[in-house]
């Protein structure tokens, strides 16, 4: 154990030192090499090189770990399982004919509709209610807390909630215990098609509502007082105030929150792997991809094709983000 701690400490030290040495060293070399002479054009040259020393490592990592792999994955998706032969669109043809893939797409669509919507609505509700409540701060902290919990940890927590003991036995899962207390029959929830997917989605809703609450809460505080006061003077009810004045003003933020959670949903993996591993028709794209990557000797062609499907589904959001950034910058 102590040996392990030492090697971890040394590893940590080496990794961090390497980065510090690079930045300090490369700038020092630049300064000593080129500053010997005081001629102006040397100064210009130096300041032309320095930005690349600053941004260089970031560009290297982004290129190697995010940009290049997208193209490589696209390339691999046109190849066979061990990437030795070009197969054209065969992986995609197989994919679209595969029943499991259809099931998976359906599930992902369901996740995509339910999770972002429910999280956003609940998050907005908590943000509004907490603003008017004495113990609002505590309430917000509690709803926010699952954000710190890993998907696997959350899966253990909820698997215990959904736990099923045979009929007639004492139910130690709280969901079945409540159902039995009201005279219902306990169920092995995770095996009931469609309902089981919804129960998995609730885990992510439980985690993401806090995120929606925080962002929407900030947006609510940004709504100008004057617009609210004017409406109150005109005799608007609380309901009208919220739906006609407040909600339209925070709508852009609502959309941002919805899309942010939607992107997360497209990549959901841990929850499904830990809860059912795709059994009982709960499969989702990210888990299906992982499955193919390591199934048997690993089918890199099919795995890559599934990854490309995920990639394609985020492209519209990506384009929208870049468009908005360029518009913002132009407006400065």
């Amino acid at each position: 154990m102590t040996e392990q701690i030492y090697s971890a400490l040394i590893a940590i030290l080496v990794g961090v030192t390497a980065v510090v040495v690079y930045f300090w060293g490369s700038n020092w070399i630049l300064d000593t090499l080129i500053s010997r002479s005081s001629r102006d054009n040397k100064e210009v040259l130096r300041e032309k090189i320095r930005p690349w020393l600053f941004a260089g490592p970031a560009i290297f990592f982004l290129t190697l770990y995010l940009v290049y792999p997208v193209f490589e994955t696209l390339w691999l998706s046109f190849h066979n399982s061990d990437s030795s032969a070009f197969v054209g669109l065969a992986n995609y043809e197989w994919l679209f004919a595969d029943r499991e893939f259809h099931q998976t797409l359906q599930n992902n669509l369901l996740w995509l509709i339910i999770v972002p919507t429910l999280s956003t609505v609940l998050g907005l509700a908590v943000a509004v209610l907490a603003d008017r409540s004495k113990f609002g701060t505590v309430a917000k902290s509690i709803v926010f807390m699952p954000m710190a919990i890993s998907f696997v940890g959350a899966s253990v927590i909820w698997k215990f909630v959904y736990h099923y003991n045979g009929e007639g036995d004492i139910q130690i899962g709280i969901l079945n215990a409540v159902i039995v207390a009201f005279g219902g029959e306990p169920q092995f929830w995770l095996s009931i098609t469609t309902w089981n997917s919804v129960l998995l989605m609730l885990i992510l809703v439980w985690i993401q509502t806090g995120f929606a609450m925080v962002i929407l809460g900030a947006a609510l505080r940004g709504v100008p007082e004057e617009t609210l006061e004017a409406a109150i003077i005109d005799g608007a009810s609380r309901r009208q105030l919220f739906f006609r004045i407040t909600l339209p003003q925070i709508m852009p933020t609502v959309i941002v929150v919805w899309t942010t959670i939607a992107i997360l949903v497209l990549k959901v993996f841990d929850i499904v792997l830990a809860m059912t591993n795709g059994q009982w028709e709960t499969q989702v794209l990210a888990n299906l991809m992982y499955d193919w990557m390591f199934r048997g000797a690993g089918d890199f062609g099919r795995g890559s094709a599934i990854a490309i499907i995920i990639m394609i589904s985020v492209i519209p959001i990506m384009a929208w983000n870049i468009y908005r950034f360029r518009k913002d910058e132009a407006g400065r």
Partner: protein
Amino acid sequence: MSVSKSKLPGFFNGTALIALVILWLIPTLGLFVSSIRDKDALAASGWWTAFNASTQVTFARTAAPSEQVQTDKGYVLAGQLTSNEGDTYTNIVAFGSTSNTPQEAEPGSQITLKNGDLLQVNADGSYEYLSDEPIKGSRGKRIFFAYAQPAEFTLENYDNVISNGGIGQAFLNTLAVTIPATVIPVLIAAFAAYAFSWMRFAGREWLFAAVIGLLVVPLQTSLVPLLRLYSDLGQMFGFESKGYVGVWMAHTGFGLPLAIYLMRNYMRSLPGDLIESARVDGASHFQVFVRIILPLSIPALASFTIFQFLWVWNDLLVAMVFLGQGEDQIVLTAQLRALLGTRGSNWEVLTSGAFISIILPLVVFFALQRFFVRGLVAGSVKG
């Protein structure tokens, strides 16, 4: 807002909020309470009953027949119900004649056994075994009964999961993954963010637009190529393709877009005059960055550090792909997932293991919530 309105909506709002909060808290509470319960009690009753005394069914033996006394009632064996370990039972709630009917009679009453002998067990655990004939045999007679076990909590599950469940080792492995995978991208991103906000170079806008595009690239597209790259490089240079360095670098790559984005937005909001005047005084960009910008950017650095820490600590996918799943490299999330597979119904192992895996992030999260929220808002409202 109008106070004159009926108080009913206000009451309704309060109740709805309380209901939501309770709903949110219950699952985690269940995990925590279960993790400190005795494992038999945990399997036998719901965690919400943990604070009540629970009823346990067991049996004990009377004193050996050699100790029987002859009285005017007959042959009597009397004494106190005691476990094999020598603990006495004191809160008897029921007793019976056979193992199938351990709760047939109230304490203090007398029942007739199959062989015609009489048995009385009192609430305080004293018993009297009565027979007309001399009691035979060498061992004491068995008495079946139920007793109330007062609510009892224990750290035994934690002891067990840390040493036998591999969670202790996994905790250290997770630290070894998380610390460098948090510090390295923070440093790299801080320098890059400065370049993107205050240095002039060709293609700056274009590159930053690319960073924004990369914010949403799913890491699924990176897995297969990197896995192949790592194993090719490993074969070429003769090192193990799965290891800590590879995971640090992967987390660095995946965390950079958000890090650069957050810090660049923050640094852009710092006053430009400050940088200009320092530059005019002859300070290089390196000096300006280290002496002025970095100290001023602490809030943004803190925000991202918390993000990245939580993300890496809680990650399962990257760790499963790029780390070995043996004892020396497996992280908490992967270990927990393995336990879900192999010890799926041993809730004492799962609950205590899960709690260990979530405790550090929870502490960091609650201690630094302010920074976390600030970063979250900065990262979303604009992006």
